[in-house]
């Protein structure tokens, strides 16, 4: 697997694998219970990660040239 494929696994690891360790109400972040904040944080990170993957992906670059 290439580096960008591993990056694609990251959102799964964070959003699913992380939840058992952060299943708690305190501390509230941005007004949200911590576990909800954690999921929201990973939604934002997912978007960032996908943008990085897009940049690294030769197939995407080739398509853009067309």
């Amino acid at each position: 697997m290439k580096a960008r494929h591993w990056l694609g696994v990251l959102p799964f690891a964070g959003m699913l694998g992380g939840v058992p360790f952060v299943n708690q109400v305190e501390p509230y972040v941005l007004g949200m219970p911590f576990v909800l904040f954690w999921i929201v944080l990973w939604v934002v990170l997912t978007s960032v990660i996908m943008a990085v993957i897009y940049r690294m992906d030769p197939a995407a670059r080739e398509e853009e040239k067309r």
Partner: protein
Amino acid sequence: MNAALAIIFLFLLVSLYFGIRAKHGKEMNMEQWTVGGRGFGAIFIFLLVAGEIYTTFTFLGGSGWAYSKGAPSYYVLSYICLAYVLSYWLLPPIWRYAKEHRLVSQSDFFVSKYNSPVLGILVAAVGGVAIIPYLILQFKGLGIIVSEASYGSISPAVAVWIGVIAVTIYVMVSGIHGSAWTAVLKDIMIFIVVVFLGFYLPFHYYGGIQPMFEAVEAAQPGYLIFPEEGMSVSWYISTVLLTVFGFYMWPHTFLSVFSAKNENVFRKNAIVLPLYTLMLLFVFFVGFTAILQVPGLKGADGDLSLLRLSIQTFDPWVIGLIGAAGLLTALVPGSMLLMTAATLFAKNIYKVIVPQATDEQVARVAKGLVPVISLISLYFTLNGGNTLVTLLLMGYSVVTQLFPALLFSLGRKPLVNKYGAFAGILCGELTVAYLTVFNITLANLFPSWPSVLKDMNIGVVALVLNLAVMFAVSFATKGLSVRNARPAKTEGTPTV
């Protein structure tokens, strides 16, 4: 008629107008009608996909679940977001293949990849079965919205009839072009309404988001985190994974993939769409606010929480705008679902049984089926008593079973053969049917297991059986398929 209803009907008329206008000046053959001539760019696909995902379920079911279940509702946020990650790699090869072979439905894909029209019939039937509960969900949502917004003067049954007639006319006139334009209107509306409600209601009743959550936690400790048992973290992880696999297996979602202009459309959308799921956060805020403000909505009535709380808070004209947004969240996906089901039956069941039918005849059958499917769903809507969530999860467990066969077909040469694919899907579906009918969960099969295992979504079992049978049958029929693969019978099918 009150102000709320007047506004809702105005929006209905506008969306019908969009639908009729969109058709103007375009010749409608089957490819135009269903996949928009494959000319949609990133923004339109974004709206179409978003249009299907943010349905009545999100609007009423999402808040309803936050209201009646608490933390388990967070799963919706995770699965939609992760499905977009998967889409980055899953959709480009599907799109490329579909374009090359001019496919117009999901089951075409299986027919062509596995060189088996019979497998196509099975896939079409599975899609049709899964779509019905999803359509019912939309119609039910429409009924709730219109009857609640009428302050009781229109019964849910009449409200459902009005909605169904509107959706049916809309689809028959315009096909996918209508959906895309109404999707634009819908997305603007739903965004404004949801963000406004999500901020306004907690501030209005509690003075902020955190005070609102603190009040809920004080009144019902543990409601804001996943419980130890039942819908625990283990349920969350397994359910998210299953729904991620099922996400693009919906025939209508699969179909919208075909309408993209190029493959980068999906890659770009995989960056932006996750952020769009954050809209759900505001839906949850509404549901959590409703817990202590409109208490006592039991079972399926939890789906009413958003509208009940709004009615208690706002003037009728605001209810009209909220209702109009809700109407559109049912209309757009509803029309996609209907059109897809009609295409599936016409092209992948009727055409296979009557091979000499011309393209025009198939298109005519598809259009003729639209009102028939509407009426069937209408019947179940008026006669069933399920909550929106139950309906959605039911549909999901059905479509997820198509995922392994699809995944293994993506390489140049499918990893399993058509017998394996057929047997695997069939076995998965029968397992799902059996488990659903008898309401079996791992917890009641193995009560002594630790909760990490027994809280897992039972759909995992069906998927494992599906895979096992798929590989076993493929292996056992290895010789058969090699002999059959040589003379490729269907035109446009790749030789293996």
